[in-house]
């Protein structure tokens, strides 16, 4: 016993939570990575006003941002099998998170793109850079720097959103928690659950903070 917490139980449950935490991190990482790609693509489609794609991206962003992740997951896990597409829980989790996150990341990148000044763009154009070179060397590096704080907030938000994955049978932290709590030890389980979320999210938070500070010091972005 330590501060009213049963240490033997903790020692026994620790590996189960550890495994779940690892799975949570892995699914979140895939989901966030995909959401960054989707977000970048959508924000560029809107920034360059690409006909067709622009409105499609706008519609997607509103849909993703204004509906809960739980609904996306229900649709993927229970809806798709009806049209003959059965996906396992983890795949649903990754896709669901990417769908939700893509909308948020698109908005983060858009703010970054809009922060690149007209003067910077004209300066690059005057050097004879092509459109693609402009994006790669002038616009994106500056836009991404501005977007870092928002991307950080979104990443942490998405990591926390994984807590609903247990509804599609992903054995994540909440899943293990709900499983073990049936046999009591609610304080110990809650303690472990909180600690493990902190252990996976806090380092991400700290890394992003450092990155933001360095960008500020370098005077890139805001």
């Amino acid at each position, binding site marked *: 016993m330590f501060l009213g917490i049963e240490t033997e139980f903790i020692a026994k449950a620790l590996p189960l939570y550890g495994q779940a935490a690892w799975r949570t991190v892995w699914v979140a990482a895939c989901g966030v990575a995909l959401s960054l790609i989707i977000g970048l693509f959508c924000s560029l489609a809107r920034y360059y006003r690409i006909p067709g794609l622009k409105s499609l991206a706008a519609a997607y962003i509103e849909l993703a941002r204004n509906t809960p992740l739980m609904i996306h997951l229900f649709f993927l896990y229970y809806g798709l099998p009806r049209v003959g597409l059965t996906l396992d829980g983890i795949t649903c989790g990754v896709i669901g998170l990417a769908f939700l996150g893509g909308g948020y990341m698109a908005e983060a990148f858009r703010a970054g793109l809009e922060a690149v000044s007209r003067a910077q763009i004209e300066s690059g*154009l005057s050097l004879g850079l092509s459109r693609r070179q402009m994006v790669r060397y002038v616009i994106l590096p500056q836009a991404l720097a501005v977007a870092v704080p928002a991307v950080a907030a979104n990443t942490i938000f998405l990591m926390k959103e994984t807590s609903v994955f247990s509804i599609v049978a992903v054995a994540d932290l909440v899943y293990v928690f709900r499983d073990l709590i049936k046999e009591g030890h609610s304080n110990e389980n809650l303690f472990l659950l909180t600690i493990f979320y902190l252990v996976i999210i806090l380092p991400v938070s700290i890394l992003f903070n450092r990155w933001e500070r360095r960008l500020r010091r370098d005077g890139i972005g805001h």
Partner: protein
Amino acid sequence: MAVARPVLKITGLHKRYDQLEVIGNLSLEVRKGEVLVVIGPSGCGKSTLLRCINGLETIQGGDIELNGQSIIVGHTRWNLVRQQIGMVFQSYDLFPHMTVLENILLGPMKAQGRERAEATKEAEAFLDRVGLLDRKDSFPRQLSGGQKQRVAIVRALCMNPEIMLFDEVTASLDPEMVREVLDVILGLAEQGMTMLIVTHEMAFARAVADKIVFMDQGSIVESAPPDIFFQNPVSDRARKFLNIFQFEGVKKEERHND
């Protein structure tokens, strides 16, 4: 002496924003090695003129030729045209996320596809000439305004352009930094660089120009060699404009009245 060929030839240029005519029927020529200085009151269209030449503004009429080739008629690949035109802006506009050297190498290496070693050698030679070789690994934020502007000039020069366009490049500099930038441009003139310069520095205009072009309300009012223009401007408008830069001895008279 044979007359040099025109590098830049503008005929009947019209530029409108909606209904507002900014430039009306303007024609001018800059010959190889010639330095043209455009002066005139704010809003007379001189900056717009430079922006039209490298396609940052669309034009509504007339033609612009670079080395005898129209860059207006037909399908213009502006990125290729701009590689032959060096443009320096009032606000320097260096890329904040790149070092001085990276700023300078971006155009030559990416746009022109030149080798790093060869482009670096040229960049360093130019930097040395403007006294900034020791700052090549600095970031723009670590430089003064005058230093940034000298880097911006080197960045444009390193493209080996046919002509350099300077758009009020000293207008946002502290007075003590104006000189270092103007000296660089004077040096280029001595070496025979073809240049079209918009400036409010009258003494500099007089020193550097082969020809002064005075603009007002979107057209050229008069153009003449600097000595003639500054001593005997023909038009009323030019005379009025030049008077702005003269100061009367106000203090003396005030003392008299006391």
